[in-house]
């Protein structure tokens, strides 16, 4: 089980770091005044440097080099045109004329656009389904608020993969829903292996991430504000639209982030429920690393994804400058 083989220098470096840290803490604790408690963060800082910052730098490094470690932009060219390498190889062997016959392969860009579209759909559906749910949960007359929150959390304890697989037994050609259709006399319908099935799986898995932040920001809201609006002559729809919704905006924004991000990158759901008919960007990254073993192209794809997500996050942050959106509960 323990097959950790570190190079010898790493062990020494770790031991030295640990000794230094213990020494520093011991020293600062012994001095009675001017204790440097900020030193307590040192192991964490080191940890994050090695396991978060350095890996990010490595993604950039692999994205900008080829298999031999030479600096190149070929990985990004291959992202734009999946036939790029093939064409260049052909050019070297058979000249420009033959190379010109290889058309641009748009598969990578198409996959990215398609994933963004699916993630967008998933976010919209989750918002439309989740907002009323959060609103009704936060309703003070409901008296069940916290119990309902627990009821929304419990399903997440079932393994995420198995929950998705469970949908297979519902959607299959001879699954439960089709058995019901058959029984009613509607005949069986193909429900699996299409875009709708993938969307359903995504909404199913990510809906709680939309409900929790909205619920948090709604339950923090002062109920007197809505009452005041009604006293001043707003009907309930106007109150909802003019008072409640703007006040829940931070929750909505963090809900959108928490649903959009995992849905662009999921690769298990499209693989199980889409059956290879729908390919998403997470899927592409996974197979580039694991099946094709092309770390350089895979890193370029990951980098592009990271940049896209950072851009969309900063746009969302603009809408919520105080960053007050509640996290998970």
């Amino acid at each position, binding site marked *: 089980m323990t097959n*950790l083989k570190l190079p010898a220098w790493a062990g020494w470096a770790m031991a030295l770091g640990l000794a230094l840290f213990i020494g520093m803490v011991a020293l600062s604790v012994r001095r009675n005044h001017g204790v440097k408690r900020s030193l307590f963060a*040192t192991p964490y800082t080191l940890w994050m440097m090695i396991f978060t910052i350095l890996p990010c730098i490595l993604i950039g490094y692999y994205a900008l080099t080829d298999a031999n470690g030479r600096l190149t932009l070929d990985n990004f060219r291959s992202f734009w045109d999946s036939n790029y390498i093939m064409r260049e190889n052909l050019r070297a062997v058979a000249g420009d004329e033959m190379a010109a016959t290889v058309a641009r392969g748009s598969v990578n860009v198409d996959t990215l656009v398609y994933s963004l579209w699916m993630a967008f759909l998933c976010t919209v559906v989750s918002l439309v389904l989740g907002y009323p749910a959060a609103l009704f949960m936060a309703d003070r007359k409901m008296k069940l608020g916290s119990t309902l929150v627990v009821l929304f959390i419990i399903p997440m304890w079932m393994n995420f993969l198995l929950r998705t697989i469970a949908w297979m037994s519902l959607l299959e050609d001879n699954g439960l829903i089709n058995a019901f259709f058959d029984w009613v006399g509607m005949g069986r319908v193909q429900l699996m292996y299409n875009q709708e099935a993938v969307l359903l799986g995504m909404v199913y898995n990510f809906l709680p991430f939309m409900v929790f932040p909205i619920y948090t920001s709604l339950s923090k809201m002062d109920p007197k504000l809505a009452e005041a609006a009604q006293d001043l002559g707003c009907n309930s729809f106007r109150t909802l639209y003019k008072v409640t919704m703007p006040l829940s905006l931070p929750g909505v924004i963090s809900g959108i982030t928490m649903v959009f991000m995992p849905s662009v990158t999921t690769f298990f759901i499209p693989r199980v429920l889409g059956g290879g008919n729908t390919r998403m960007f997470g899927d592409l990254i996974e197979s580039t690393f694991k099946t094709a073993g092309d770390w350089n192209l895979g890193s370029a794809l990951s980098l592009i994804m990271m940049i896209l997500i950072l851009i969309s996050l900063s746009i969302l942050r603009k809408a919520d400058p105080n960053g007050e959106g509640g996290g998970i509960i």
Partner: protein
Amino acid sequence: MKQFFKKFYLALVLIFLYVPILVLIVQSFNAGKSRAKWEGFSFHWYADLFSNASIMNALWVTVSVAVVATIAATLLGTLAAIGIYSMKKRPQAFMMTVTNLPNTMPDIVTGVSLMLLYIFAKVDRGYWTMVLAHVTFDVPYVVLSVLPKLKQMNKHTYEAALDLGATPAYALTHVIIPECKQGIVTGALLAFTLSLDDFTISYFTTSPLVQNLSTLIYSATKLGISPTYYALSSLMFVVLLVLLLIVNHRTEDNKG
């Protein structure tokens, strides 16, 4: 009427969330292997579960990784929160950015980047590389749950303890840690749950020889999944539910 509509809507959403889980639990008692046909009630898959070496091994890996990673992350994160809290403004802002960074990275990118780190450092992936990865994605959650508790704390309590003759170490263990105990517990629970359910990051940071439950299930889906897995997850689900009820019961007792 309005109230009825609201309850009805919430009930529909909850049914949507629970139907697949009920289906899994029912199927774990199905005598046959088929997902479509009910062939009678049986404990066959539960018996099979305990004699299945690869599932038992994966269960051990999952739980032990979660426990080790939670302990490490809680220690590291609590210390870090105390450190960050007492930092000056600039380094504090920097540390907060670093802490929030993993939250803005999708799981797959975290997984891939750690895999690249292991490849780069020429470390063979396996059990311990998975533990390191889990600690990495757990720690920020601990920091983010402890830090608010520290900020709520009365600053002068610590100073008062020192004035009354406590050593800084004594004040730390008897004033600061008890004050943020609730945050530490929340952080640890969050870390444990995240670790238990993680698939993507584990998938990229372990070898096919060391599987946790999620990666094992993933490789099993390619061959057609056996109801033994349903039995396992139903059991785990019930255990967690009972734990929740006990915890809930106890907190209510304490209140009353």
